[in-house]
C-alpha cells in the first residue's frame, strides 16, 4: 500500500461520522458520536473539549484507527485509518491519557519502540531516542525502568516516544490530566513548543478549558453524544480580552 499523503485533502476529515456501541435502544447500547463533521487542516492544533463521557475518546480512537465508525467517513491524509491500518505506520503518533510505558523496557527502549516498528537501524534509533530524551530533560535516565521514574518523567518519556517517529499527525488524549498542576503546566508549554517547532498536525483531547485555550489554534466543544456545539479558531495575536470572551462562551456552551 502506498504511504503517500494527499496534500490537497484536509489532514483529518470526519464526514457524518457516528459511533454506536452495542445495539441502540437496547440495554447497554448507546450512541457515543452522532453524525459529526469535522476537518482539521495540516499544521493545525485542534483542542477537542468536552465533559467526561461526551465521546471525545471515541473520536480520538476513530482518528487513530483503533475503533471503526458505525457510519460515516473518517479520513486521515485522505485514507481510512481503520481499514488502511498498516499504511499509517510512522504517520500517526499518540500520547495517551496515562503514560503506557512498557514496564519491561528502559526509558530509552520505550522511546525506541515506534522506530523499531519502522525498521530503523539500531544505531539510528538509539541516537534519535537519546536526542528526544535529552530534549525533554531526561538525559541520565535513559536506562531507568519506568517504575524508577516519577509520573512527570514517565509522561515525558511517552511524549518523547510519540515525537521520535517524526509522525506528521499527533493525537493526544488528556496526557497531562494525571499530573500535578505545576508539572502539567511546564510539560504543556514544552509540548506546544515542540509541536510548533516540528510542524505537526495535532489533535488534543481535554476537558480543561484553560488547557484548550493554551494549546489550541482552534477549539471544538462537544456536547453529549459527541456533537459539535461550538467551533472557534484563534491565533497567537488574539488578545487576552477576546480569549476571555471565548472562555466565557465555552463555559456557557458546556453549562447548557
Amino acid at each position, binding site marked *: 500500500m502506498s504511504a503517500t499523503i494527499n496534500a490537497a485533502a484536509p489532514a483529518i476529515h470526519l464526514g457524518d461520522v457516528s459511533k454506536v456501541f452495542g445495539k441502540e435502544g437496547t440495554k447497554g447500547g448507546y450512541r457515543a458520536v452522532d453524525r459529526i463533521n469535522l476537518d482539521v487542516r495540516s499544521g493545525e492544533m485542534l483542542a477537542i473539549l468536552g465533559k467526561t463521557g461526551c465521546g471525545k475518546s471515541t473520536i480520538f480512537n476513530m482518528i*487513530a484507527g*483503533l475503533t471503526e465508525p458505525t457510519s460515516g467517513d473518517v479520513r486521515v491524509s485522505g485514507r481510512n485509518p481503520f481499514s488502511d*491500518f*498498516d499504511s*499509517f*505506520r*510512522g504517520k*500517526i*503518533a*499518540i500520547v*495517551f491519557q*496515562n503514560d*503506557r510505558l*512498557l*514496564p*519491561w*523496557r*528502559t526509558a530509552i527502549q520505550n522511546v525506541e*519502540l*515506534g522506530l*523499531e*516498528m519502522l525498521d530503523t537501524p539500531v544505531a539510528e534509533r538509539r541516537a534519535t531516542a537519546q536526542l528526544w530524551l535529552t530534549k525533554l530533560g531526561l538525559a541520565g535516565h535513559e536506562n531507568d*525502568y*519506568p*517504575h*524508577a521514574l516519577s509520573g512527570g518523567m514517565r509522561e515525558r518519556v511517552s511524549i518523547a516516544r510519540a515525537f521520535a*517517529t517524526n509522525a506528521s499527525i499527533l493525537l493526544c488524549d488528556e496526557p497531562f490530566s494525571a499530573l500535578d498542576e505545576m508539572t502539567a503546566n511546564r510539560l504543556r508549554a514544552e509540548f506546544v513548543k515542540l509541536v510548533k517547532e516540528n510542524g505537526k498536525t495535532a489533535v488534543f483531547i481535554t476537558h480543561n478549558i484553560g488547557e484548550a485555550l493554551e494549546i489550541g489554534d482552534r477549539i471544538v466543544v462537544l456536547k453529549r453524544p459527541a456533537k459539535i456545539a461550538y467551533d472557534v479558531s484563534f491565533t497567537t495575536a488574539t488578545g487576552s480580552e477576546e480569549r476571555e470572551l471565548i472562555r466565557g462562551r465555552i463555559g456557557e456552551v458546556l453549562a447548557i
Partner: protein
Amino acid sequence: MSDQTLDDVHLSPSARMLSAAKRLGMSVLPFVVVIALWQFASLFFPRFLFPSLIDVFWRCLDIFSSGVLFADVLATVLRILAGLAGAFVIGGALALLMARSPAIDKFLSPILTLFQGIPALSWVVFAIIWFHGVEFRIFFIMVMTTLPAFAFQVLGALRAMSKDLMEMVFSFRPTRMKLFRVMIAPAILPDILTAWKVNLGNASRVVVVAELVGATGGVGYQLLQQQQLFDMAGALAWTLQLVFFVLIVQSALTLIENVAFRYRAVSERAI
C-alpha cells in the same frame, strides 16, 4: 542476590557476610534435620527399611560415574524435557487460538478440562494399548498430562495482558511478529515460567509412572528393579537423581526470572 534485603545495603562487609550465612543456614536447616533423622533411624532399623545415607551417597556416586547407569538418568531427563516442550508448544498454540477466537475457546475448553480430569495412569494404559514404540508412548503420556495446564496457563496470561499497553503498541502499527516480540512475549513470560515450574514437578512424577510400566530403561525402570530387589538404598539413589534434576532446572528457571524480571519494582514491605 535476589534474597538480599534493602537493609543489607547499609551493612558493613562482615555483617553482610554474617547475614548471608544466616540466610543460607536457614534454607539448609530443613534438609539437615531430615538427613539427621533418617541417619538416626538407620541406626535402629534394618538396612532394607532405612539404609545409611552414606550407602545412598555411594550408590548415587556409582550412578554418576557409570556411563550405563547415568544414561538411564539422561534418558529420563530427555523424556521429561521433550514431553514438556511438546506440551508447551501445542498448549501455547492452542491458547493463542483460543485467545483469538471465542468459538475455538468454546470448543477447546471443555476438551482440555476433560483431559485434565483423566488420571496419568489412564494415559499410560491408553498409550500402551494404542502405540507400539516405547519412546512415543512416553512422549504421548507426558504431553497429554501436561498439555491442559500449559494451555490454560498461557491462555490466562494472554487474557491478563494490559489492554492499555496493547492499544499503545497497536498505535504504532506493528507486524504480527513484532507485536509478539515487543508486547506478547514479555507480558506472558512470567506466567510461562511459572507454568514450567509447576509442570516440571508434575512431569517428573508422571515420567516415572510411564517408565515403570512401559520402558526398558530410565529412572522409573531402575526404580522397578530396586523394588524387585528390595534395595532401599538403590531406590533412594535413583529417586534423588530426579530430585537433583528438578532442583537444577528450577534453579535455572529462577535465574532466568531474576534476569528477565529485573525491571520489577521491589517493595520494602513484604506481603
